[in-house]
C-alpha cells in the first residue's frame, strides 16, 4: 500500500543536505546541513525495521505480540546522543573561528590564512 | 453507552476550536492578532480533545475494570496540566520579544506601552 514512500523521502532529505554542504559557504549553514543528513539516516534506520501491523517492542500492557524489529531502534538511540555532542563541538569551533578571523565565509577564511 | 456521544461532542468542540486557531493564524494581519488567535484557541481545543481521551479511559475502566485504563486517564490528566502550565508563558515571552524588537501593530496610531517604559 504505502509503496516505499518513506525511503524516497529519506533520499530527498539526504540529497538536500549534500547539496547544501557542497554549495553553501556559511559555516553554520554547513552544520545545519550535517544535522539534516544525520536526521535522514536516523529516519532510514527506523523505517527499515518497521513491520506491517507490528507494535512497539515493549511487553507492558501490549495489545498483541507481533513486534517491530528492535535492533535498529537501539542503534538509532545511540546515534542521536552522539549527534548532539558533535554538533555542539562544531558550533564551538565556529564561534572561535569567527572571533579569530571576523567572518564565517569559508572562502575568505581560506584566503586569509595564506 | 451514553458516554460515546459525550466523546463525539468533545472531539467536535476540540476540532472546531483548533481549526479556528489555525485559520486565524493564517488570515490575521500582524503578529499580535495572530498570537491572540493561535495560542488561546489552540490551547482550548487541545484540552477538549484530551478530555475525550479521559472520558474514553474512564468508560473502559467502568466497563471491564482493567487498571491499565486508570493509568491512561491519569497520565492524560498530567499531560493536560503540563500543557496548561507551559503554553501561556511561551505566548507572553513571544509578545514581549516582538514588542521589544520593534514590530508595530498594523494600522496603530499610538503606542502607550513604549511611552510607559521610558
Amino acid at each position: 500500500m504505502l509503496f516505499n514512500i518513506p525511503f524516497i523521502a529519506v533520499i530527498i532529505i539526504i540529497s538536500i543536505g549534500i547539496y547544501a554542504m557542497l554549495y553553501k559557504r556559511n559555516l553554520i549553514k554547513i552544520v545545519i546541513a550535517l544535522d539534516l543528513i544525520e536526521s535522514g539516516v536516523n529516519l532510514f534506520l527506523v523505517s527499515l525495521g518497521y513491520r506491517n501491523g507490528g507494535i512497539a517492542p515493549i511487553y507492558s500492557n501490549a495489545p498483541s505480540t507481533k513486534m517491530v524489529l528492535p535492533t535498529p531502534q537501539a542503534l538509532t538511540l545511540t546515534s542521536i546522543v552522539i549527534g548532539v555532542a558533535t554538533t555542539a563541538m562544531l558550533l564551538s569551533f565556529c564561534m572561535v573561528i569567527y572571533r579569530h578571523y571576523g567572518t564565517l565565509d569559508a572562502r575568505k577564511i581560506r584566503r586569509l590564512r595564506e | 453507552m451514553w458516554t460515546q456521544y459525550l466523546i463525539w461532542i468533545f472531539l467536535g468542540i476540540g476540532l472546531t476550536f483548533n481549526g479556528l486557531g489555525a485559520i486565524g493564524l493564517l488570515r490575521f494581519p500582524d503578529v499580535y492578532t495572530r498570537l491572540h488567535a493561535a495560542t488561546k484557541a489552540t490551547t482550548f481545543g487541545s484540552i477538549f480533545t484530551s478530555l475525550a481521551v479521559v472520558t474514553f479511559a474512564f468508560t473502559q475502566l467502568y466497563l471491564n475494570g482493567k487498571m491499565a485504563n486508570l493509568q491512561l486517564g491519569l497520565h492524560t490528566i498530567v499531560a493536560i496540566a503540563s500543557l496548561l502550565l507551559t503554553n501561556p508563558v511561551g505566548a507572553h515571552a513571544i509578545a514581549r520579544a516582538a514588542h521589544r524588537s520593534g514590530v508595530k501593530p498594523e494600522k496603530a496610531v499610538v503606542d502607550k506601552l513604549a511611552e510607559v517604559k521610558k
Partner: protein
Amino acid sequence: MKMSKIVRTQANFLYPFILIFGFYIIAHGHLTPGGGFQGGAVIATGIALIAVAYKYNDIKKWLKKTRLTATEGIGLLAFIITAICGFGTSFFYNWLANSGLLFGDRVPYGINPGYLNTGGVLPIMNLAVGIEVLGGLGVIIVYMLSYVKEVK
C-alpha cells in the same frame, strides 16, 4: 539580561517537576519507553531552562562547571564498574537477573502489567548513564554561555 518576572516565577515552579519526571523516566526505563539517555536529556533541558530565565552572572555560583564535569566522570566510572562486576562470566553479564536479590525478581513470560523490582543490572546502568548524559549535556550549555558572555 534576565527575562520578565512571569517567566522567572514559572521557571522556578516548573524546574522540580522536570527533575522529578526525568528521574521517573530513568527509573522506569526497563518497563516503559525511556531510559538513561532520554532521562538525562530531559534533566539537561531543565538546566537550560534555568539558564535562560536568569542572568548568567547570577546563576554562576549554582551551575559550576567543575561540579558538572565531575558528575559526568562519576557516571562513566559507575557504568564501567557495573560492567566489570559481571566478570565471572563475561564483561557485560547480567549477574543480578533472576537471582532474587535487589532488582532480581523473575518476570512472567508474555504480556504483563510490569513490575518495578525486575531487570537485574539494567536499572543500575540506566542510572549511571543518566547521570553521565545529564552532566555532559549540561556542561556544554554552560560552557557556550560563559564563552558568549566573556567575548561580547
